[in-house]
């Protein structure tokens, strides 16, 4: 029981890391290597505002989300849209966007180092919370609840609203959805901005229980990449399932076998998925 709850909590954390990139890569077709940096940016904001004014990171998250949405919208419009327009095919766009966002990640790290080069560490809701006789960290539970909320909201929006359906259509095929009258550039920008906002929100939540620093973003980008490839690119359900599987497996291995083997176990699962379902758990087979 203890292992399942701890694993679920970790899975929630992983889902927070992966939601944003899933939107950006799955719908907007931008392989955003600066995704982790946006997450760290959210963490930095939470840390900074907490130290200055003891303002709750949850509140910070609500302030940061629209800012991140707007910032990512501008980035997409100004920096990435020209790449999309120029790209003759999906492969070229991927290469271009990887290079562009890779460069952006360095710029973001530089900015964050100049703001605060040390560790972003503070204490928020670092209190014990009991579930069926076992103790868990309250901040992780809060983050998990938000992961559920964010994931649930995204799912509802994607599957039960018109713009959501349009977005799923774009993720299936940009050409076909353009033909049926969907404004693809607009939808892509929206997906990119929304993805950025969700990633930044994840960062503010994660900063309450993981000590981050300005350069740690790339680790989160990699984790997010693994999760969305495991789950199936562009599918929110896949990201959630993959995140929870990773969380459960890592926790089980850490508790029952050896904490030293968590990474190995995570990659073993990843390799298995790639071997037997290369399109990801919920991915569509390329036609």
């Amino acid at each position, binding site marked *: 029981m203890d292992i399942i709850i701890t694993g679920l909590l970790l899975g929630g954390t992983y889902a927070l890391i992966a939601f944003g990139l899933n939107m950006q890569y799955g719908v907007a077709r931008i392989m955003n290597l600066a995704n982790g940096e946006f997450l760290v940016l959210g963490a930095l904001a939470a840390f900074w505002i907490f130290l200055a004014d003891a303002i709750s990171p949850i509140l910070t998250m609500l302030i940061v989300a629209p800012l991140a949405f707007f910032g990512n919208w501008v980035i997409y419009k100004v920096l990435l849209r020209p790449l999309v327009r120029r790209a003759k095919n999906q492969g070229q766009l991927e290469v271009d966007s990887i290079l562009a966002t890779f460069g952006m990640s360095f710029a973001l790290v530089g900015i964050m180092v100049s703001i605060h080069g040390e560790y972003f560490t503070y204490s928020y809701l670092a209190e014990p919370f009991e579930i069926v006789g076992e103790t868990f960290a309250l901040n992780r539970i809060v983050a998990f609840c938000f992961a559920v909320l964010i994931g649930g909201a995204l799912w509802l929006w994607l599957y039960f609203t018109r713009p959501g359906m349009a977005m799923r259509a774009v993720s299936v095929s940009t050409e076909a959805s353009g033909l049926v009258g969907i404004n693809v550039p607009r939808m892509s920008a929206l997906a990119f901005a929304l993805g950025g906002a969700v990633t930044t929100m994840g960062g503010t939540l994660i900063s309450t229980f993981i000590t981050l620093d*300005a350069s740690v973003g790339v680790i989160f980008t990699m984790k997010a990449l693994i999760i969305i490839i495991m789950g199936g690119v562009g599918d929110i359900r896949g990201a959630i399932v993959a995140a929870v599987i990773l969380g459960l497996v890592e926790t089980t291995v850490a508790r029952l076998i050896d904490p030293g083997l*968590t990474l190995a176990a995570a990659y073993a699962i990843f390799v298995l998925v790639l071997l037997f379902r290369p399109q990801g758990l919920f991915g569509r087979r390329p036609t």
Partner: protein
Amino acid sequence: MLKTVFKAVAIAASASLLAFSAQAADVIKIGQVAPKSGPLAGGAAVTQWPNVELWSKQVNAAGGLNVGGKKMMVEIIEYDDKTNPGEHIKAAQRLAEVDKVDFIIAPYGTGFNLAAAPIYAKYGYPQIGVSAISDKMPELTARYDNLFFTLGNTTSFTESVVEILSDMRAAGTIGNRVAMVNVADAFGIELAEAARPRMKEAGFEIVYDKSYPLGTPDLSPIIKGAKDSNPDAFVAWSYPPDTFGLTEQAIIQDLDVKMYYTAVATCFPAFKGKFGSKVEGVFGAGGVNQDSARIQEYFKAHQEITGKAADGWASANTYVSLEILGQAIEGAGTLDRKVVTQYIKDNTFDTIMGPISFEGQISNKFWTVGQWQDGKFRGVKSSQMDGAAPIVVKDGWN
């Protein structure tokens, strides 16, 4: 296109030549390559960079260094090694070949001090290593006669921890059961391997002995596992992010041991900033003599000039290494690196940590274990340092 590039290069080159000839006369150029980004940047931002700033500003405020009767200002040239040894070597070469610096300040991190030693030796720069802890020091100093070590070795760090365990057991505070974890990284593995036989020899039973990968996002399974093993003492050979993470989980899970030790970054001001009064009684690597007037003066200057607090360990050692470099340049009265290196070997230096001299290029005066007591991180075990505070017994997480 090509033409403009050439033009730009030519202009840049002539500009730097001009700058060089104008400055070369009365400035000592000192290079520093250390992480500003990458995994070690967070630690370097606490321990390394502020001291470089503090020392150079203080030296220049005093009119510079007296080199053979001529006052010379110091100019620091900084490069970011991105916590990447390859980048470090490139930047070090640039310092030597392009910037033609007179001296260098030793790198940050054990691996970097070892990786860069050949290149600094090649150019003959005295390398007064601080943030480097290894048992290979005698071998290395035998190979590189410009390399110095000041922060101690693995053996003394683990021995001090076992000494504390033994002292506490003798006093009846703890029993024999020790839970030990380490980060699966060169540093953590070396310390855990050094500690294991020593603990057993001293009659301790290691009831939980696990490692975890660097960057593990959830450390609660480790603390739960340690707690289930019902230990009297908890020892973690940890790095900064996990020092914070393990302690947070230990508080949440109420890992109530009388002896709790985490290694690197326990002495950071941010550790107390995060955990507040709960740090009372926590042991960590390092230490400093908080009662020394010169250390207090140094802490004050550090806060005033850099705007941040020094840590309770290697901050002072880093500053000391710069004091040694400055005094050696003045004492030797020349910028000749060979003469300065020899001067470091032959003399005793008056520093904020007291007189320091080198034996086989290694200084044996350093702190090994400190403890948070009344909100201050005090040295409790050391090699040849005065002013060790008596140990207090930790009483829960309050």
